[in-house]
């Protein structure tokens, strides 16, 4: 199950919900808001999502993970809104009989979330500037493609 939420992620409740007597391995991944990125001091992050499409695509990724790996459980939750340093932006939890599939599936899920789920991140820096990640176009403009 993939969820998008504006509330702080409750890693304790999420972890507890994965409990399963058939599972021997549990791998979790959390993405935290870090105080710097590429040498710039970060104050906060702003996440925005296409809610309906994000949940559809997120659930598609979890279904793919379950078909690729023999899992007993797979959950992912992504945060939307403004997050301070240290807050969790995404939580992924996977269980399986053995650790191989749990590690592989957790990695697969977070990689696919980052690559495919329509969620955007704006970094707000200590110098007052801010930037949508992956949306820079200055290089292209320099090459002679200004907005019409």
């Amino acid at each position: 199950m993939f969820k998008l939420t504006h509330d702080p992620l409750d890693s304790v409740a999420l972890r507890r919900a994965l409990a399963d007597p058939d599972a021997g391995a549990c791998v979790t991944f959390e993405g935290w808001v870090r105080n710097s990125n590429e040498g710039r001091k970060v104050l906060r992050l702003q996440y925005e999502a296409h809610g309906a499409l994000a949940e559809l695509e997120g659930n598609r990724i979890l279904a793919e993970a379950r078909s690729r790996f023999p899992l007993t459980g797979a959950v992912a939750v992504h945060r939307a809104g403004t997050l301070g340093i240290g807050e969790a932006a995404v939580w992924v939890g996977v269980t399986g009989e053995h650790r191989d599939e749990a590690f592989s599936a957790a990695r697969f899920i977070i990689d696919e979330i980052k690559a495919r789920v329509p969620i955007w991140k704006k970094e707000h820096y200590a110098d007052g500037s801010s930037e949508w990640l992956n949306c820079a176009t200055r290089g292209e403009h320099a090459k002679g493609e200004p907005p019409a």
Partner: protein
Amino acid sequence: MSAGARGSRSVKLQYFAVLREQRGVAEETLETTARTSSDLYEELRARHGFTLPAARLRVAINDSFVPWDRELADGDRVAFIPPVAGG
């Protein structure tokens, strides 16, 4: 046969992230003579100065990803999807 010759459609546009900021609104309803979402994006890009070229976007209609050359239908909800950056 130009798109105009076939009349205009009413579409609901959803903007996200850098496109939302460059447009200044998150949603709008628009009458357009654009035949495909590709034509529509070029029209909007010219009008609003969007910096992202279509090649770096995906397009979703009614909450599903679709090819850029999909023809628009009256009442479609169109979202241009900038490069994602979750996690």
